[in-house]
């Protein structure tokens, strides 16, 4: 989703190598920051976020399942899982369309990891959740609506 990141990962010969090196104190935080798709994480419109992720025309896929409640009572913590049945899934990105910052998380998966992740996200109000999956250089997308009773991301 970020060609520079892919190059870094290839150069490092592994997954998230900069994070590991930074955690081990081998590289500086500034170098580790290079691995993060800053433009995507700072995007405040969905279009900007998708563009930064290279997902402007991602193909819709029924092989991505987003599990979330239809109605979330408390937008401060909504349980969510994304599962990909797309072979060789290497990255999963979760976006919350109605939040001030759209990209909630980007997960880079090793071959050992089952392509399924559970987490909890904030939802400012009722929103569409987008899941992107990168596999063999292609990006696929799925969406799901969640109604929020009490928002949890306000100002």
């Amino acid at each position: 989703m970020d060609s520079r990141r892919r190059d870094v990962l290839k150069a490092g010969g592994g997954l998230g190598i900069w994070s590991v090196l930074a955690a081990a104190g081998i590289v500086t935080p500034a170098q580790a920051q290079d691995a993060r798709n800053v433009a995507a994480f700072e995007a405040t419109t969905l279009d900007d976020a998708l563009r930064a992720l290279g997902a402007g025309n991602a193909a819709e896929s029924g092989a991505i399942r987003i599990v979330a409640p239809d109605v979330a009572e408390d937008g401060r913590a909504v349980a969510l899982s994304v599962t990909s049945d797309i072979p060789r899934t290497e990255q999963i990105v979760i976006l919350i369309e109605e939040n001030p910052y759209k990209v909630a998380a980007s997960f880079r998966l090793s071959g050992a990891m089952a392509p399924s992740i559970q987490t909890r996200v904030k939802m400012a109000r009722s929103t569409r959740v987008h899941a992107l999956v990168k596999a063999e250089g292609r990006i696929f997308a799925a969406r799901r609506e969640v109604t929020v009773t009490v928002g949890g991301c306000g100002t």
Partner: protein
Amino acid sequence: MSTPTRIRAMLKDGATELRMLFSHPMENGLRKDAEGRRIPAHFITEASVRRNGEVVLAADFGPSIATNPYLAFSIAGGAAGDEIVVSWRDNLGETRSDTIRVA
């Protein structure tokens, strides 16, 4: 000082199921306190999970991840005694690493 990440690892059906709860405020920088002052952004930006030194998951977070981030996923294989290391870094440069052994 930050609070340890709570990590659970369970061997099941030839896989290792991992669950973890990071302790972090995950402030997005847009909220205001009772006096109307803006609460500065403070959130985890990167997290990684390693098994016996090998990265199994590398994550970037934004502030839309809930306070005290929770992750659960499964990795193929595993054995009692495997070392699981969970690390994070936040936007203020603070880092933390916690280790458990698979029981």
